[in-house]
């Protein structure tokens, strides 16, 4: 077995250091403009971080050691215990997957060898999108396009709850590429539970609210599609929205230079949410016959965009892949870890959460290995716990932004945490199988 090294010296190389252009790992937006001061082992976000970022970076580092059965052990002992659990498992599950691209590469390598199942904690939301991609496809855009082009933005959920800086970084742009100053934008909020307070700002010309239950947004979008085809609506109100309001929205859509519809799959917490996404994507496609429109899917927290991308390029399939047969098999229902836990088909759980302490492992009685942050929230003591470095704080790495395409570098902020790198830990477990 290869011995794994914990991080370097327990004391930071220099007493203090300033970092600029730091990428934040605390939501899928991955803002890369943070300024961070390090004094000793403590970090302070001095510019551009939202509350979530501050809370995330500024958690005081506390000493954390690997444990087996609740007892402190050496890293190598923990690795050996983890390997033993995986070795004796008929179908191990690799879940959580709160990590970056390199971390996910190590997970895939281990799961491939261990003949396990790979699924992210956000796997269900991701699967909703994948169902649409794999049946119909879509027409999408990315943040910089939205920032500079979008003059009509249709929201289907309160994005600010997920991405505190979305409006600041993408919508409230004082200068844009194709207009003098800000783009004059109309913001349409379809659905429920919006906080409209923080939406106003440079460029936001008008805010239109269309109230309906979240699970009826699909009907509203279908009504828009019907109207834009020149067909009559079947009723005077659709999902409680009166016809004139729908006609007004249709007219706004047709007037737009670049319309964008935004959704967050995990925010659609109702059955068959993929059908709502389906309708959104079909409407966007239809609008493109004559004019320009695009979709934008957000969320992507806890490294889920990176996890799905790596799974796809290494196995051919997005998340919810099983290597049980030796070859990858993909099935978004069968290989969902929540289902496998419930049915008892999986008999060991490896849970990785190296980005935040919040991605709690699901309740289960099967042997569990948690590879997590030093301050990982644990509902119960796992059989093996290995604290690891957070990429973007204690280790270098790369992470993919929620809109795909853009991959940002993650920095080591030199707080010399002494925490082991999760890649080294996963590689060592693999070598010990």
């Amino acid at each position, binding site marked *: 077995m290869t011995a794994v090294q914990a991080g370097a010296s327990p004391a930071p190389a220099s007493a203090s250091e300033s970092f600029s*252009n730091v*990428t934040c790992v605390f939501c899928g937006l991955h803002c*890369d*403009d943070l300024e961070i001061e390090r004094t000793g082992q403590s970090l302070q976000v001095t510019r551009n971080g939202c509350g979530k970022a501050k809370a995330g970076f500024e958690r005081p580092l506390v000493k954390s050691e690997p444990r087996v059965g609740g007892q402190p052990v050496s890293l190598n002992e923990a690795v050996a215990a983890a390997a033993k659990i995986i070795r004796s498992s008929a179908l191990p599950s690799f879940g959580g997957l709160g990590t970056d*691209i390199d971390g996910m*590469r190590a997970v895939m*390598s281990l799961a*491939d*060898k261990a003949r396990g199942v790979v699924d992210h904690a956000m796997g269900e939301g991701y699967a909703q999108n*994948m169902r649409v*991609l*794999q*049946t*119909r*496809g*879509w*027409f*999408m*855009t*990315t*943040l*910089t*396009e939205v*920032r*500079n*082009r979008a003059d009509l933005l249709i929201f289907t959920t309160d994005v600010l709850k997920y991405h505190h800086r979305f409006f600041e*970084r*993408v919508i409230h742009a004082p*200068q*844009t*590429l*194709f207009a003098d100053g800000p783009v004059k934008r109309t913001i349409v909020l379809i659905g429920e539970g919006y906080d409209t307070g923080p939406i106003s700002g440079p460029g936001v010309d008008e805010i239109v609210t269309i109230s309906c239950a979240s699970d009826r947004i699909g009907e509203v979008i279908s009504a828009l599609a019907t109207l834009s085809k020149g067909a009559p609506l079947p009723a005077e109100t659709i999902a409680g929205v009166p016809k004139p309001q729908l006609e007004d929205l249709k007219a706004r859509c047709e007037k737009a*230079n*670049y319309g964008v519809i935004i959704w967050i799959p995990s925010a659609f917490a109702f059955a068959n949410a993929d059908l709502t996404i389906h309708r959104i994507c079909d409407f966007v496609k239809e609008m*493109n016959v004559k004019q*320009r429109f*695009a979709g934008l899917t957000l969320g992507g927290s806890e490294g889920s965009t990176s996890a799905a*991308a790596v799974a*796809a*390029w*290494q*196995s*051919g*399939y997005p998340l919810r892949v099983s*290597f049980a*047969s*030796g*070859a*990858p*098999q*993909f099935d978004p229902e069968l290989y969902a870890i929540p289902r496998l836990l419930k049915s008892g088909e999986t008999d060991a759980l490896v849970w990785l959460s190296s980005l935040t302490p919040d991605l709690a492992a699901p309740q289960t009685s099967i042997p569990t290995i948690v590879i997590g942050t030093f301050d990982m929230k644990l509902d119960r003591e796992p059989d093996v716990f290995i604290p690891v470095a957070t990429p973007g704080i204690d280790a*270098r790495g*790369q992470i*993919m932004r929620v809109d*795909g*395409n*853009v*991959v*940002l*570098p993650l920095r080591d902020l030199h707080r010399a945490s002494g925490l082991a790198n999760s890649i080294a830990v996963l590689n060592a477990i693999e070598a010990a199988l």
Partner: protein
Amino acid sequence: MLIKFTGGKVYDPANGIDGQVRDIYVRDGRVVTPSATDTISAEYNLAGKVVMAGGIDPHSHIGGGKMNIARMMLPEDHRHDNVARGDLTRAGCGHAAPSTFVAGYRYAEMGYTAAFEPAMLAVNARQTHAEMGDTPMIDKGAYVLLGSDDYFLRLLTRGADKEEIKDYIAWTMHAAQALAVKVVNPGGISAFKFNQRMLDLDEKNAFYGVTPRDIILTLGRSLQELGVPHPVHVHGCNLGVPGNKETTLATIRAAEGTPIHLTHIQFHSYGTEGDFKFSSGAAEIAELVNQNPNVSIDVGQILFGQTVTASGDSMRQYGNTKSANPKKWVVMDIECDAGCGVVPMKYRDKSFVNALQWAIGLEMFLLVKDPWRIFLTTDHPNGAPFTTYPHLIRLLMDKTFRNEMLRRIHPGAQAATILGSITREYSLNEIAIMTRAGPAKSLGLKDRGHLGPGACADITVYDDNPDREAMFTTPAFVFKNGEMIVRNGRIVHVVAGATHVVRPEYDRKRTEKPLKDYFETYHTMRMENFRMADEEVITAGCGHAPGTCGCLIVQPVGTRK
């Protein structure tokens, strides 16, 4: 340790060796001339076998955002070709959009030792390099896309000084760790975002007022003056549009002698004659290519069956969505920088259009005279997956076989092609040129694609089987850097493969000052984070510590003029 490859029939066109029996000596991964006192520590008796440098694919979509969309979108295609983990190899899947590992294994098993991703978006460079890093066995590199990016178009609009433009091109190549520069539907990807649906060579982008002609010429001349070996890699206007041969002919003339490479030219060689208003323009284009030594091409041959098309050309891919099979597709606008479109496609020999596309590609191969200026590609996976290369080679080398295949296609297409009247058969030497020596020369890979002293010992050995498809499907041996990696078409040793880049000179300070402001004012990513560091490429899967291996190879450039 000196290895001797004894008595093979060597096809090494770069060194003028055409099937002569030669011994080749390799030490420390390089071809060497041994001295009389050297002792030979290993010997391979290759009597009767055919020896070539490892194959080099100069245009194959092996990594990056659009390929990963294709993978995610097509589980039904992978399911026919799931690949189990082996003793040496990782699990994955194959066919149209293979997993990275399987792509690497299959290239090597087919005797290829390098493949180049031709459409890396600068904003997507990290993903592209990560995927290439996870593509084992072969060397890689990527061509960065320019020409629909806002910054470049702005430079043209304001008539920027040509040194400033060259600096920006060079900066982008460094930032994205690129080997060459590609332009896709020049200015058209941007135009589509302003709702323009087509952009011909002399049409203006509605916002910037620049034409594809301006863009191609500026990129072509700048790259030449920067000393970048590979000329501007042009995916022209109007891909797939009947009548686009006129645009292609005009593009060749527009180059005015500047070196250009026209890629997947098959998709740009269509006329509008006949009942279907779709005809072959191959003869006219081949003629003009023959007359213009500044022009090189690759074909982008289509072969029948299911595949997926993945391109940066969002405008034309959107146009092609009508033909999507199965009926699903993705188009994207990306970061005021680029775009992409992914459309599954099933080419059928009983479809007039598909059958004629097949014939047009073959006509092009057979009518262009100089094999140093035409490379064998299917534009993987757009015309067909790269695993069809052995079949394509047989079509080129075996007239009887070709004519048999011709008789199976749509009768209207048979009548519309001159293919049946062409008697040319490619020789092994010509195949070695267009699959090795030619691409290496064009890309500036001085120590690849040949077997002279100093060459990297990437060597493929074939049985001299008269069935050329069988021969090129299953090489007897493949060596990478002198190590045997494939025996009888099976992987016997896994290696990482290197990434090749070029780094033209530029003034970094002068270039980055305005760029830094530009990124901060308009983009959602900082310039400093747009730029990729060397360690990010090197650590991508090679398993070596930064700086301790040859995994990042900086190819020489000429002096800046």
